[in-house]
């Protein structure tokens, strides 16, 4: 009989013990060790990131947690139930890597279908589907079959289906894959909003910025093995280096500060202007353009030099 999860872990939503997966060929010969024994605990209300390059075992871990594949050894528990127990799926939402949906359905039919699988009454299905379609911005395309959708639109309806049951645990496989910067930002905002609403989110991605922006804790996998596990802030903090930020300093004041630091024995002193991210710049340009159609964005004009002046 499988062991039951630790009773002390009341807030533990997901737990794995020595969870491993080896893919085998038809004759049972070992083909690839996709996941080496993994021990994890993911707690209620956190955003947990599985980070790693392609083929590192992120998606395999998600599939094992969902019961889509069976472990070669070890155990996985979700809400205290074995991962293969179908009943756990009542409280789960899952967005696969490519939003694998039925292309012959339209958006409304898609959400209605998945709502039916949760046994939702018709009125609730309709209300929830309308709200989710509105939320993911597909109101105008609700009657189009998914085969006509762009990749970004497919991703959005994929998110909607993952949230149709208002799940407590949301598993997102490469959630920003195929999205433009605006969609990426909206997705990240959505993930943060889910956390705000008390949901637990597990996402896997190889896009480091996305993980850094939203995750509370991450696990770094490489070649199927857990390499790092901890809070993002802790993992990224560079100890032994101090950073100051200030507004309105003159060049003279900067030199004075540098001299003070040198006097206190500081080394490798850098003084300069911080840069924004390309994502922030792009979003600002888009917002500005939407606010004042037909005019070149201010920041864009300011940063393009003589040609723009």
């Amino acid at each position: 009989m499988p062991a039951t999860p630790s009773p002390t872990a009341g807030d533990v939503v997901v737990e794995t013990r020595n969870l491993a997966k080896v893919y085998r060929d038809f004759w049972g010969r070992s083909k690839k060790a996709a996941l080496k024994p993994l021990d994890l605990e993911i707690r209620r209300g956190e955003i947990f990131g599985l980070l790693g390059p392609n083929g590192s075992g992120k998606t395999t871990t998600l599939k094992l947690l969902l019961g889509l594949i069976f472990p070669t050894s070890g155990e996985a528990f979700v809400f205290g139930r074995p991962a293969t127990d179908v009943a756990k799926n009542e409280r789960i939402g899952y967005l696969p890597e490519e939003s694998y949906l039925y292309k012959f359905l339209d958006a409304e039919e898609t959400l209605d279908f998945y709502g039916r699988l949760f046994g939702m009454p018709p009125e609730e299905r309709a209300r929830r589907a309308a709200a989710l379609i509105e939320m993911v911005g597909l109101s105008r395309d609700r009657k189009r079959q998914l085969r006509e959708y762009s990749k970004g639109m497919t991703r959005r309806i994929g998110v909607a289906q993952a949230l149709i049951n208002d799940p407590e645990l949301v598993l997102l496989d490469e959630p920003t894959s195929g999205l433009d910067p605006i969609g990426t930002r909206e997705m990240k905002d959505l993930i943060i909003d889910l956390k705000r609403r008390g949901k637990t989110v597990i996402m896997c991605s190889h896009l480091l910025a996305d993980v850094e922006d939203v995750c509370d804790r991450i696990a770094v996998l490489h070649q199927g093995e857990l390499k790092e596990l901890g809070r993002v802030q802790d993992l990224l903090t560079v100890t032994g280096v101090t950073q100051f930020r200030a507004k309105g300093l003159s060049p003279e004041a900067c030199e004075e500060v540098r001299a003070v630091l040198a006097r206190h024995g500081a080394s490798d002193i850098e003084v300069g202007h911080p840069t924004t991210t390309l994502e922030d710049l792009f979003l600002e340009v888009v917002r500005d353009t939407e606010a004042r159609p037909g005019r070149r964005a201010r920041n864009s004009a300011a940063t393009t030099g003589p040609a723009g002046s």
Partner: protein
Amino acid sequence: MVLEQEIPRFADWIGPALLAFLLTAGIVILAIGLIAWLVQALVCGPLEAGDRVYRGVLTGLADLRATSPGRVWALARLAIQEAVRRNVLVVLAVFAVVVLFAGWFLDPTNVDPGRLYLGFMLGATNLLVCTVTLILAVFSLPADIKSKAIQTVTTKPVRTAEIVLGRFLGFALVGTGLLAVMGLAGWAFVVRSVNHTHELPAAAVQEVRDEDGNVAGFEGRTSPGRGHRHFVALDAEGRGVAETFHGHRHRITPRGSGADRSYDVGPPEGILEARRPLRGPLRFLDREGRPAEKGISVGAEWAYRQYIEGGTGAAAVWTFAGLRAEAYPEGLPLEMTIRVFRTYKGTITEGIHGTIQLRNPVNQLRSEAFPIVAREFTIDEFWIPRKLGTVLADGTVRAADLFTDFVADGRVEVWLQCLEPAQYYGVAQADFYLRAGEGSFAGNYAKGCLGAWFSMLIVTALGVMLSTFLSAPVALVAALSVLLIGQFREFIARLFASQVTGDATIAPGGGPIESLYRIVTQTSITLELDPTPAVQAMKLADTVLLAPMRVLAGLFPSLSALGTSDFVAGGFDIPGDLLAAHGLETLAYVAAFCVAGAFCLRAREVAS
């Protein structure tokens, strides 16, 4: 109509059938459990393997119990939407083409157009519907697994049983809709195709006068139509029925009088019928008139019919039971199909003469002999009147009553003899019957479609089950193979019965080893082998081999055994007992395939 086995009463059938089902299911479940344990034992050792198999079965059964009708319906709706949006309705256009070709190429001058059109339309409908649902069933789930859409379904609270049942239900509903449309269209096509009439102008009939010179009636021939014409014999008022030809007749009514008289020829009667026959057991007498175990074999490999020699004491005797005078106040309507084996050609355009005679089964009182002429390949009708003569011991004939003198305890014997020496009559039990009643042809046609529906349900469930663990093309080939093997199910059952009982007449030639021996030594299957120890050992080995084959054969559905279109095409009402047995057999196969499919899907990883 050929009826190789007597149709048992449902009450008599259900007991042995249920026992066979439980036995087969039990053996198969044990065998699969053993295989699963062996495979797991190789991976994790015997004890852990036992635990895994036990838990797998328990959780699988729990999943079956937790099946939600709502989710099944959701998945069924999805299957219907998938079928419709993938243009499954195109099959209706294909059916329309089939109907067009049938209209162009089926021969309306055929001697039995009802059988021809009905057989074709029911066969085509059955084939098309089964093909479509099989293709839908085998391609759907593998396509979902390939496109990974199944992952968004299995990560919802959906049991594998619900996925299998939903797929089955959806495609079964699609098939039902198609069958309903095709059935109705086929019905309209058949009714229109066999419908025809003839002209009977006044000039085509001549007066028939009696001895006093009064007009006693009229006779003549209708105009040709559909490759035939009818002789007509009308009464003095000009009313009558055209002689039965090509299996039908026309009612004729006069219009006008004197020089303006003409005749209306009604629509054909007797083509689209649903006879309810009363059959009785058949026994044979040899040329000396002594009871014989069977008739004469004329060398036909298919021993369905036995033959009686003409001009001798040989006779075929049917005993009909349950006869009441109230049910047959006018007499007994006999119908028969008699085959003829000629040892010399004779007059080939004429039938072979014979007699029919009634006998009281208790006191052996004989009726007068009624002459008949056997016309092959058609159903001959013969009316035995209520008032008839009986032959006394001194050879004289006296008047007698059918029920008073020849029916004892509701039973009567009907003797058939061939009169022409060196010619033979070939008969089977089902060839000779009393026409006890009439069913509705429309109702019978619907029952024929119900038979096609049973086949479609089995094919769909089989396709869905195989698609849970095979890729689509492989599942399609596997399904076709299963259906093909199913055609041999009855033969394997007969072979096993033959081995166990030692009665070689049930399935001559023996089991696989004996058959191989006969092939190598070029020994005929009709030749009894000497019971040497080697032959005994061979037969024993065959019995041991055939036992598992007999069990396995039960797993393979026989669609031809489920088919009832022969009844409809032959003009016979499909017995309710047969339909009930087929319905229950279908239910058993569908349930078994769905449960097996649910377990197979549960045992596999739907993602990779």
